[in-house]
């Protein structure tokens, strides 16, 4: 027994080292971008040539860049609102709607996970041309609602499912209408998850490239701007400075979303009423 326990402990230590190496593999390539964004050379190669902030200075006063940034922020906010609204309603009706239609909608809403981005992109490209919209910011919003939908549905569904059924039943028994129960009881209880779903959907939209490539008209989003700059070796350091800013902001938003999601779940378990 003792030997066995020592054995599993040793296994755990080896596995721990492996996990550490895995995390290094996961983060090292990504961390090269901030590293070289401060490097005083146009080439991303070792040895480093000295510290500089000049690439960050080139980010200022660049109308194409700021236009793309504003586009991405606006599209991200609208698409995240849409995806969160759909995520809330779809998962709520899936759990409490008791209709085959609601269950079907919920199943289809999670389907985009099984469709490669390129096919989502071209199917929407055909659709928006058919209804006369054409490649535009509205088209991008529709595409990003679709891409973020599985995430918002999963986040909201697990949150609603964690609320004890008795809470909703009590509200209904006390005479609250469906609408009041939803708005005054269920929605406030899942507010952290709503915020988390919104933030994750925003991040998905903000970083999305594969679908937006097909749907963008004359106003590019930030990833499209980056893609257009990658062709020019001279602009690579600027791209890396921009990438560093995006990485930092993404990390902060993702961290906050994760924190909110867990705090919400923890609070629900500790204090079910």
């Amino acid at each position, binding site marked *: 027994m003792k030997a066995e326990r020592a054995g599993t402990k040793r296994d*755990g230590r080896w*596995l*721990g080292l492996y996990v550490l190496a*895995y995390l290094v*593999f*996961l*983060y090292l*390539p*990504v961390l090269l*971008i901030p590293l070289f964004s401060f490097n005083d050379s146009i*080439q*991303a190669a070792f040895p480093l040539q000295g510290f500089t902030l000049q690439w960050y200075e080139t980010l200022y006063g660049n109308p194409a860049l700021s236009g793309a940034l504003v586009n991405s922020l606006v599209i991200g906010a609208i698409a995240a609102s*849409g995806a969160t609204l*759909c995520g809330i*309603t*779809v998962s709520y*009706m899936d759990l409490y*709607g008791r209709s085959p*239609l*609601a269950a079907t*909608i919920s199943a*289809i*809403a999670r*389907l*985009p996970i*099984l*469709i*490669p981005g*390129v*096919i989502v992109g*071209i*199917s929407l*490209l*055909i*659709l928006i041309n*058919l209804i006369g919209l054409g490649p535009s910011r509205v088209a991008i919003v*529709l595409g990003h*609602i*679709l891409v973020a939908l599985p995430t918002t549905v999963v986040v909201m569904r697990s949150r609603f499912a964690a609320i004890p059924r008795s809470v909703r*039943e009590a509200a*209904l028994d006390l005479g609250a209408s*469906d*609408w009041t129960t939803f708005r005054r009881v269920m929605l406030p209880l899942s507010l952290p998850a709503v915020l988390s779903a919104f933030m*994750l959907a925003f991040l*998905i939209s903000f*970083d999305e*490239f*594969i679908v937006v*490539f*097909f749907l963008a008209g004359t106003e590019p989003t930030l*990833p499209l701007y*980056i893609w257009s700059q*990658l062709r020019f070796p001279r602009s690579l350091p600027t*791209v890396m400075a921009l*990438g560093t800013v995006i*990485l930092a902001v993404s*990390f902060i938003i*993702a961290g906050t979303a*994760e924190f909110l999601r*867990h705090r919400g779940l923890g609070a629900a378990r500790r204090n079910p009423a």
Partner: protein
Amino acid sequence: MSTLVAAEVPESRSSSGFRFAMLLPGALVTFLLILFALGLVLFLAFRGNDGSLLGVGLTVENFVTVATDPLYWTVTLRSLVIAGLVTLATVVTAYPVAYYLAFHAGRRRGLLLFLVTLPFWTSYLLRVFAWKIVLAYNGVLNSALIESGIWSEPTLAFLNTPAAVVVTLAHAYAPFAILPIYVALDTIPKSLLEAASDLGARPFTAFRRVVLPNSMPGVLAAALVVFVPTVGDYVTPAMVGGPASTMIGTLIQSQFGKANDWPFGAALSVCVMLVILVVVLVARGADRRFGSRT
């Protein structure tokens, strides 16, 4: 049972206006943007190309071309091999991490879960671009090898190869694989492991005969969520793959771009979806086989 009956009563008051309002957004998005849009792709795949939006006539010519032109077989096969290798690599490397998270992480579990999922939410384009920096002719790997004296000349052998595509995709999709496996491992009852060791199974036997089969649903789910996006990827082959790693996603993208043959691109998309359907069904079948064993 009694709660079910009690819930029945308020449910009957359910207002149709509320139901309509709650079902509307989801119905619009799923039926119009998903089902109708995919239906359009299927429809277009059976049309001829005359430069108009929805093509002309009714034809299977697009599929005949896909089936008879060896180019499409080569590219499809290459996409399957690359996506298969990426899936294998991500699942095999992710499994020990998920295992550690489920059985050894202890108090560090929350932090580790956060750390492995964090890259998931950061720009895919930047993650691919990072590998371009690593693998380029004057990139990090070459300069590191020369600095350390292992190599005397920088080599072109890293970038623009199918191997570069595999490594880059495996890195980009690594976080996708860990979570499903972790969830599967975490839900194995600890009593099963104790029973195995009480019955005299050595740790490795217990792992092979108890833990591994029980975690297969998670492994299959992980394989699916890695395989699907990689098989249709066109960004990574374009950035680090070079001409020798053209994938099926690249071909679809060019049909809707430079080549401008939408019906043919739609036919290619239908073929990719069929391939994915087959993979999903195989995974389902395997899942059921393992599911019945538990």
